[in-house]
C-alpha cells in the first residue's frame, strides 16, 4: 500500500463537475475536452461508488479550468515547462477544482510519437485523484505518481490507486449475489453449443450457514440442510427422501456410513463393530436426517454382527439430483430490469435493443419468445455484434443502425450495397466515437443525432449534418448529457431514455414534461 489518502473526502458520492465558463482551453476543442474529462472521471467512477454528472455551472463540486502563469491562486504555472496542472483536495469553494496550464501543448488523442505534447486524459485522471482526496504515490506506474508517465490506450486503474479510492469511498456496488458471503453459484464449465452462444448451467450449492445466529461455534457447517424438504415423494419413506444424493463416494448411498469413507466422521452413534453385542441394537440415528444409506422402516433393527455386511439392496428411491434449468447467457438482459441501448419504431412496431438482443412490441404487446439476437432479424450485421448504439427508421423507410463509427443501412432485412459506411460521411466529426441516439423529431420532421454533450441536425436530402452544428444538449432542457437512446413514438412525441427511466419531451416548451423520469419497464415492456 503506497497510495496516500489525504484525509479530506467528499461527504456525498454523486459529484458534479463542469468546464469553467470563463477559463476554457485556448488551443483545443472544448467539446473534445469535455469528452476527455468525462472519460478521466469515469476511470474513478468505475472503481468506486462515486458518480460524476456534468452540469453547466461554476457551482459544480469540481470545476475544471485552463489558465496561464498566475491565476488567482498561490501556485502560478510556469509556461510550457515542467508543471502541467494542479488540483485541490475536496472541500468547499475551490475544493476539488482542477487547474490546467493553458501554455502546455494538450493532446486529446495522443499518439505514441507525440513527444512534445501531453495527454490531457492522463493528466486529468491524475488531477481528479487529488480532487477526490488522494495525494501522490511513490509507486512507479501508479496514476498518482507525481511525474507524467503518459498513458496506455486501454488504460486500467492500477491497484495502488484503486485501493486508495476504495478505502475512501468504498468499492463499486456489487451485484446482489456477490454480497452474500455464503452463497455463490457454482459455474460449471460453460458448455459451448454449436452456435456461438454459450449456456452456463449453475448447480445451486446448498448454502451452509457460516455463522448461524444460534450456533455456539461459528464457522462450523450446519448439520441441517439449507433448503426445506419438498413434499414427501413416497408415502412410506421419510419426507426427506427427495434430498439430493450428497455422498459422492458411493453415489447409490445417501450419507457416509463408516469412518473410512468419511475420515472426519466419527461413527460414535453407530454400534461399534468390534463389540459383539448379543442383542440387536435398535438403530437410533443421532440426527433426524442422518438415516442409514438404505431406507428402512424406523423400527427395523440392523444386525450388528461385524462379519455380516449390511444387506446389499438397491435403494428404493430414485436418486434425485437437482439440476437447475440452464441460466440464460450472462449478457441476455432481464426484460423488466435493464437499460436500453437503442429504441425505435420500425413499420409501426416498437423495437428495443440491448446488448446482442432486441424486443419487438406490436399492437398486442410484447411478442413471445423475445428478446432474440438482433442478427436473427438483420443477419448482415457483424457476427460478433455486442451491441448497437443507435437505430432509427428514416423517412424513406430505410433502417439505419449505428454501431461505433459505422453506419449500416438496411432496406427491411437487406443491407444496402456500399454499407457499412463511416459516420464521417454524414458530416460527423472524425473523433466522434459513437452516437447515443438518432431520431426524426416529430416537431419539424428533421433528423437529429445525439452524442455525449452534443447534438446535430441532419439533412436527409443532402445526406449531411447542417453546418452550424453541433450544439449543446442543454437545448433539450431537462434531458442532460450522455443519453442512452431517443425515439419518436406514434403520438409524434419524442422520448429520451437514460438509465432505467425515460422522459417525454414537450416540443412547444422545449423541455421535458416531467423532471422526474418514468420507469421504462412498466411503461414500454408492460412489466
Amino acid at each position, binding site marked *: 500500500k503506497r497510495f496516500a489518502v*489525504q484525509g*479530506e473526502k467528499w461527504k456525498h458520492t454523486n459529484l458534479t463537475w463542469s468546464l469553467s465558463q470563463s477559463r476554457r482551453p485556448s488551443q483545443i476543442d472544448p467539446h473534445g475536452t469535455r469528452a476527455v474529462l468525462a472519460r478521466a472521471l469515469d476511470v474513478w467512477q468505475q472503481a468506486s461508488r462515486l458518480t460524476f454528472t456534468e452540469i453547466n455551472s461554476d457551482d459544480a463540486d469540481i*470545476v475544471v479550468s485552463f489558465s496561464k502563469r498566475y491565476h*488567482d*491562486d*498561490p*501556485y502560478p*504555472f510556469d509556461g510550457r515547462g*515542467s*508543471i*502541467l*496542472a*494542479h*488540483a*485541490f*483536495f475536496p*472541500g*468547499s*469553494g*475551490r*475544493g476539488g*477544482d482542477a*487547474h490546467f*496550464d493553458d501554455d502546455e501543448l494538450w493532446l486529446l488523442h495522443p499518439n505514441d510519437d507525440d513527444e512534445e505534447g*501531453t495527454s490531457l486524459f492522463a*493528466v486529468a485522471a*491524475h*488531477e481528479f485523484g*487529488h480532487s477526490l482526496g488522494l*495525494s*501522490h504515490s*511513490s509507486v*512507479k506506474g501508479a496514476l498518482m505518481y*507525481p*511525474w*507524467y508517465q503518459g498513458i496506455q490506450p486501454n488504460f486500467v486503474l492500477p491497484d495502488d490507486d484503486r485501493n486508495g479510492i476504495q478505502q475512501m469511498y468504498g468499492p463499486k456496488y456489487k451485484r446482489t449475489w456477490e454480497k452474500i458471503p455464503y452463497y455463490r453459484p457454482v459455474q460449471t464449465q460453460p458448455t459451448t453449443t454449436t452456435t456461438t452462444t454459450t449456456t452456463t448451467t449453475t448447480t445451486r450449492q446448498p448454502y451452509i450457514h457460516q455463522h448461524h445466529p444460534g450456533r455456539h461455534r461459528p464457522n462450523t457447517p450446519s448439520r441441517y440442510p439449507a433448503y426445506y424438504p419438498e413434499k414427501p415423494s413416497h408415502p412410506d419413506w421419510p419426507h426427506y427422501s427427495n434430498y439430493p444424493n450428497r455422498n459422492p463416494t458411493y453415489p447409490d448411498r445417501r450419507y457416509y456410513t463408516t469412518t473410512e469413507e468419511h475420515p472426519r466422521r466419527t461413527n460414535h452413534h453407530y454400534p461399534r463393530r468390534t463389540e459383539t453385542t448379543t442383542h440387536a441394537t435398535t438403530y437410533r440415528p443421532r440426527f433426524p436426517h442422518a438415516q442409514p444409506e438404505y431406507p428402512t422402516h424406523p423400527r427395523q433393527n440392523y444386525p450388528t454382527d461385524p462379519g455380516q455386511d449390511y444387506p446389499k439392496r438397491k435403494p428404493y428411491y430414485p436418486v434425485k439430483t437437482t439440476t437447475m434449468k440452464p441460466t440464460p447467457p450472462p449478457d441476455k438482459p432481464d426484460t423488466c430490469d435493464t437499460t436500453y441501448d437503442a429504441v425505435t419504431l420500425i413499420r409501426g412496431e416498437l423495437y428495443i435493443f440491448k446488448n446482442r438482443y432486441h424486443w419487438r412490441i406490436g399492437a398486442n404487446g410484447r411478442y413471445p419468445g423475445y428478446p432474440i439476437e438482433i442478427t436473427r432479424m438483420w443477419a448482415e450485421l457483424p457476427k460478433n455484434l455486442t451491441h448497437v448504439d443507435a437505430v432509427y427508421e428514416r423517412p424513406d423507410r430505410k433502417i439505419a443502425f449505428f454501431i461505433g463509427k459505422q453506419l449500416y443501412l438496411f432496406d427491411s432485412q437487406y443491407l444496402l450495397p456500399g454499407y457499412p459506411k463511416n459516420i464521417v460521411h454524414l458530416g460527423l466529426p472524425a473523433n466522434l466515437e459513437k452516437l447515443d441516439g438518432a431520431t426524426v423529431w416529430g416537431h419539424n420532421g428533421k433528423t437529429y443525432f445525439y452524442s455525449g454533450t452534443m447534438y446535430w441536425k441532419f439533412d436527409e436530402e443532402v445526406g449531411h449534418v447542417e453546418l452550424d452544428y453541433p450544439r449543446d444538449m442543454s437545448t433539450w432542457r431537462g434531458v442532460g448529457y450522455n443519453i442512452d437512446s431517443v425515439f419518436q413514438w406514434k403520438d409524434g412525441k419524442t422520448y429520451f431514455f437514460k438509465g432505467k427511466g425515460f422522459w417525454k419531451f414537450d416540443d412547444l416548451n422545449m423541455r421535458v414534461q416531467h423532471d422526474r423520469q418514468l420507469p421504462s419497464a412498466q411503461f414500454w415492456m408492460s412489466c
Partner: protein
Amino acid sequence: APAPSRPTRSTSEKSARSYLEMFGYLTKEKPEVGNLLMEDVEQSYEDDFRIAIKTLQEFGGIPVTGVIDHATKELMKKKRCGRPDREPGYDKNNRRR
C-alpha cells in the same frame, strides 16, 4: 569580528532548493538564529538539504545518493503535477473567487 561570509550556493543548488521547497521536501521556514551559532545554522541547512534530496530521490524511484547527480537533475526537469509531494497545508487557500 565580521561574521564568516556564508558560502555562496551554486545556481543549481539554488534551483534545486526552490524545487524542493515547491514540492514540499524543504520547508521555507528560516531557522531561528537566536542562540545558534552560524556554523550550527549552516550545518542544519546542509543536513536538511541532503535529507530533502534523499527523500526526493526515493519518492522518484531513482538511486538515493543525497547529492544532486544527473538522475536527480533529469527528474527535476520532467513534466509533473504541480501539487507538492508533501502536503504542508497546501489547501489553506481554498477560497474560490
